[in-house]
């Protein structure tokens, strides 16, 4: 089920990125990071990195910063590894903590990208701070909400409601 989940997650990330891009949202969440984080939350580093690769490549294809294919792949693999390592060492249960972790991951991702561009192209192009913070915030918020939503026992609640209706 995992590959299907990843495929659906990446497809949705592409759709969401394109949709928000079409809407000219200034600081959309990093949906690809959310897919990687979803894979890394159990502490499995290799699957997280393996998801980070296509996720980053897709992001490169969509955004193509400087026409460098692999730039986001590099950062997503690294972020996937870091998130998986953290997930293996600590238990993050609260959605707020998950959101904070995701926001931090966005910052690491941006720092990695800036560093890579600087090394490869010789241009130091840091993102605008407020845009970066906004992106980190939206990603953390959206990721936290998704996490919180994923923790809700929807089935049990539906069953309970059905039972109440029947009685």
């Amino acid at each position: 089920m995992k590959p299907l989940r990843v495929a659906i997650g990446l497809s949705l990330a592409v759709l969401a990125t394109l949709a928000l891009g079409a809407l000219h949202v200034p600081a959309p969440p990093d949906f690809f990071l959310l897919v990687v984080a979803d894979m890394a939350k159990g502490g499995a580093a290799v699957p997280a990195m393996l998801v980070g690769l296509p996720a980053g490549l897709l992001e490169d294809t969509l955004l193509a910063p400087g026409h460098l294919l692999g730039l986001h792949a590099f950062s997503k693999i690294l972020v996937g590894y870091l998130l998986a390592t953290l997930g293996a060492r600590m238990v993050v249960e609260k959605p707020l903590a998950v959101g904070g972790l995701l926001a931090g991951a966005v910052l690491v991702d941006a720092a990695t990208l800036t560093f890579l561009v600087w090394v490869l192209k010789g241009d130091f192009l840091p993102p605008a701070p407020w845009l970066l913070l906004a992106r980190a915030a939206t990603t953390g918020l959206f990721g936290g909400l998704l996490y919180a939503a994923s923790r809700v026992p929807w089935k049990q609640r539906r069953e309970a409601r059905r039972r109440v209706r029947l009685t």
Partner: protein
Amino acid sequence: MAAPTLTERRPEIFLAVLLSLCLVALSLQVRRPNGRTVGEGWLLTAVSPFVDLVTAVRSGVHDVGTWATSRRALRVENRALSAEVEELRGELLRLRDAEKDKGRLLELFGALPSPPPGTFPARLIAVESSGPFHTALLDRGAGDGLQLDGVVLARAGLLGRVIALGPRTARVQLLSDNTAAVGVLLTHASRGGRVAVAKGDGQGGVSVEYVPTIEPVEPNDVLVSSGTDGLYPGGLPVGRVASVRRNKTLFWEIQVSAAADPHRESIVFVLPPVRKSDVTSGLSVMERR
């Protein structure tokens, strides 16, 4: 705490591999201002030692090839130059010979500024003096106008006379020959002249006979041809008295140092033979003109 094994480090290794692959892929795309990608730059840096090695080997091979080619060319050139040097050396020798010949001719003409008609220059190409008969060979003969009994004269004095003629060669009897004789005039600055006969001794020398001991003779007295023998004209230098000895007879034993050495002469004059009328009148060479 035990160090993590390779299996336990698998995610880190995987991370390193994936990041390296990404980095390589990125570096292959980044184009520097010089037109090369970063990857190309890195690759060039990595392979530069090999490039240097190949360049050095190629340069070495090229140098060896150039050396071989230039060596071959140099050898060919050297051979050509050696041949040219030999040719020039030969030419130089010929020119030196010609220069010497010219000098000798000038000396000859200096000694005999106005030779009589029928006088020819000739090369003395061989001297035979090992036996009792002393002869020389000239490179001119009857075909060149030489006549039998022609008088052979070197720059220093009388050498002999022509005794045999070929079309292109002539055989000369030298004064030192055992059977050669010439009438001479023994001259001294204070005492005047005295007629005598000079003969070859067959050993390379010339002696004077029949000079009575009552006649004063001293070393360095000059001998010139008298012109009375019917073979040689008068006035030609024959030599100088080398030594004078008194023997048991009434005559001096006089050894003569010949004026002309056939071994040192290469060009001679051949004068026409003496006419009978010249003999009776006792004309000298100059007077015969």
